């Protein structure tokens, strides 16, 4: 009883505060990863960032001394809900890249007092953007075979090698990188996780052009790049456990409901009716498309219901469980299939790349369809997720050298 009363009061407090402080000029502000927001581009945006992070509400569950608000998950949920209700948004996660979603939680778990004090406040305030150097050209799904070397030199590591798919590397201030610190140890044993500033001579980034056009991804080259030993996260040569944890947080952050439609987004079935038309009885004029469409909508519901069920069963504990693999695959399937169906219903209007003959929605649908092909590749491919499910959840035996 008392608890829920307190929550009720807290909800009122949050909603009043948000209404009072969220600048109306920012309604409908585009936070999409397509155009990553840089802190300070806009004074109102800057104002809102500062007000929210001063209260620690950008990272509500983080400890107060590190820039959080030390709140419980139910309280954090209320903040999310009230911010959404007010048509506002939390700017901190997007402008910190991998900071809030992946790096922060991992530092909280593995970091020393000093590391927490050094790195978390900058993330919580939204002033430091982070990228992650995990994959390499010859180590995609197979992180254990990475080749970037880090050699100890005085109180630092000297890094040499190439990373790929470092999202936002060209606009980040810090990078968390997996590196090989013991070349002699067998694959997974000799690697460590280090943190280093991007603004140094030894670091070079090159954006990657994707099939969908320009992208937030980069190749990142380390030529004698420096990482302080003090910025080694976790134990030396024990980077594997840190990375596994990171990837869990990544899957976690990728299992939110698919293509979470903006409030104003047109439901798929309405778009279908607009392009395809309906029969006398009001059903879609293309019954073949209709069947595949209803399947997709059902799959989307099933995914949403599973997210809430698993959260409820986990009794609100942050869930980085094995279920994340199931959810990542189901969300990917729903989103990629939705993108295919969207193109199919747009028909002749769903093949555009540029130009006035196509609406922006139509052009975006094509780009999103292409970009979405990455969902089943990054963050552990669909195949890797199935390996995890069959081994970690179902307890099926390791398939010798079968990955």
């Amino acid at each position: 009883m008392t608890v829920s009363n307190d929550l009720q009061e807290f909800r009122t407090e949050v909603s009043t505060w948000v209404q009072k402080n969220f600048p109306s000029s920012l309604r409908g502000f585009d936070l999409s990863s397509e155009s990553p927001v840089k802190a300070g581009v806009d004074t109102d945006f800057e104002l809102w960032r500062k007000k929210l992070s001063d209260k620690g509400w950008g990272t509500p569950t983080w400890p107060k001394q590190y820039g959080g608000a030390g709140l419980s998950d139910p309280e954090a949920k209320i903040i999310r809900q009230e911010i959404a209700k007010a048509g506002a948004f939390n700017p901190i996660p997007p402008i910190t890249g991998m900071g809030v979603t992946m790096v922060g939680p991992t530092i909280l778990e593995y970091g020393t007092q000093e590391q927490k004090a050094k790195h978390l406040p900058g993330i919580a305030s939204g002033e430091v953007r982070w990228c992650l150097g995990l994959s390499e050209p010859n180590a995609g799904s197979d992180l254990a075979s990475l080749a970037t070397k880090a050699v100890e030199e005085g109180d630092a590591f000297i890094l040499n090698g190439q990373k790929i798919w470092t999202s936002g590397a060209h606009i980040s201030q810090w990078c968390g990188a997996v590196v090989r610190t013991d070349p002699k140890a067998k694959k997974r044993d000799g690697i460590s996780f280090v943190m280093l500033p991007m603004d140094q001579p030894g670091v070079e980034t090159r954006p990657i052009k994707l099939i969908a056009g320009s992208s937030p991804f980069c190749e990142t080259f380390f030529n004698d790049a420096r990482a302080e030993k003090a910025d080694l996260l976790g134990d030396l040569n024990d980077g594997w456990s840190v990375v596994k944890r990171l990837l869990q947080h990544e899957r976690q952050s990728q299992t939110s409901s698919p293509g979470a439609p903006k409030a104003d987004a047109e439901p798929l079935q309405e778009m279908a009716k607009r392009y395809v038309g309906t029969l006398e009885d009001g059903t879609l004029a293309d019954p073949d498309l209709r069947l595949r469409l209803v399947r997709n909508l059902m799959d989307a519901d099933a995914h949403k219901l599973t997210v809430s069920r698993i959260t409820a069963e986990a009794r609100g504990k942050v869930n980085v469980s094995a279920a994340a693999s199931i959810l990542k695959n189901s969300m990917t399937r729903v989103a990629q299939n939705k993108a295919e169906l969207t193109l199919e219903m747009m028909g002749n209007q769903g093949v555009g790349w540029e130009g006035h003959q196509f609406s922006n929605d139509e052009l975006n649908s094509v780009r999103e369809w292409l970009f979405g092909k990455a969902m089943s590749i990054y963050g552990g491919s669909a195949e890797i997720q199935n390996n995890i499910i069959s081994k970690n959840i179902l307890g099926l035996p390791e398939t010798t050298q079968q990955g």
Partner: protein
Amino acid sequence: MAALNEEQTLLKDQASAWVSAEAPVAKFRAMRNEGKEAAFAQPTWAAMVEMGWTGILIPEEFGGSDLGYLTFGVVLEELGKQLTASPLFASAYVGASALMLAGSKAQKSELLPKIVDGSAIVTLALEEGARHAPLQTKLKAAADGDHFTLTGTKTLVLEGMTATHFIVVARTNGKAGDVNGLSLFVVPADAKGLGRTAMKTMDSRGYAELQLDGVKVPSSALMGPADQAGEVLDEILDRARAGLGAEMLGVGAQSFAMTLDYLKTRKQFGAVIGSFQALGHRAAELFSAMELARSCGEAALQELDGQSNNVAKACSLSKAKVGDFLHEMSNQLIQIHGGIGMTDEFDAGLYLKRARVLEGLYGTPAFHRDRYARLLGF
């Protein structure tokens, strides 16, 4: 969503323990081999009544415990795991739901307590043709004075050979296809002019075909206003569909467990077959499909308990998604077991046959995809 409360968790454990000890699939097989018409074991049924499962949905004033649909679903799932056959679903779930939704005070007071104590088995008599299409109901109920005269036939009436009362869907007006003109009647099994013959189905459950040849019932047998039953019938059927979803989750969960066990123990080419990546990934896909289907199945039961206005959509989602999962799961149960799965002495065939019948009952996945789309306005 479905984090079970303490009561439900206890019941689940009780049901699970009892089913595997007292009503395992071996008993169902024995019953099938005997070929007995009742298609369930009397002691099994008596024990369920004893444990109070017949009263889970029924209000306390009628002797029930009023625990709701999710709770009943917990029991149906455990029964599904061992294919346990009994009138529990037909009578204490569907029959009770029908009476609670559409029955008169008198009908409830007369029948609900008897459902609880097992002295009455009340079942729905709906199907007529090959397709599940309630509005196509043809069975005629002609009003004359203070009586109705019912004429027509019903098929696939669940537990029809042991039922004491039928809830008969009849047409009092209009023609096949009309939503108006449908009525529900409570008809005692011993009514004059009512004949029933057992149907031997692949799943060896106790279905019957009914012939109503001018069966006279008093107006008091009418459930709710005449001609207006179309809507409440849909509500009754949605409850039935969600219940089937729960049983199907049990059938599917057991099928998956049997398959997973086989993958871990059966050796070929010098390794357990579960170490072949193609089979490991298939198991992963099946498990994922099961988790997604479970969410839909449990959500439907919760919507019923919450009496949300989302019931129809949720129940069609459940029947469609659980149905699709079970379809694939039951086929893979055979495929992955290989030759042994094809033999009658192994249980896989029993699960496959139950799975296919449940898949069609009260609407195939295709029926519910269409319904779901219409509910979404396309």
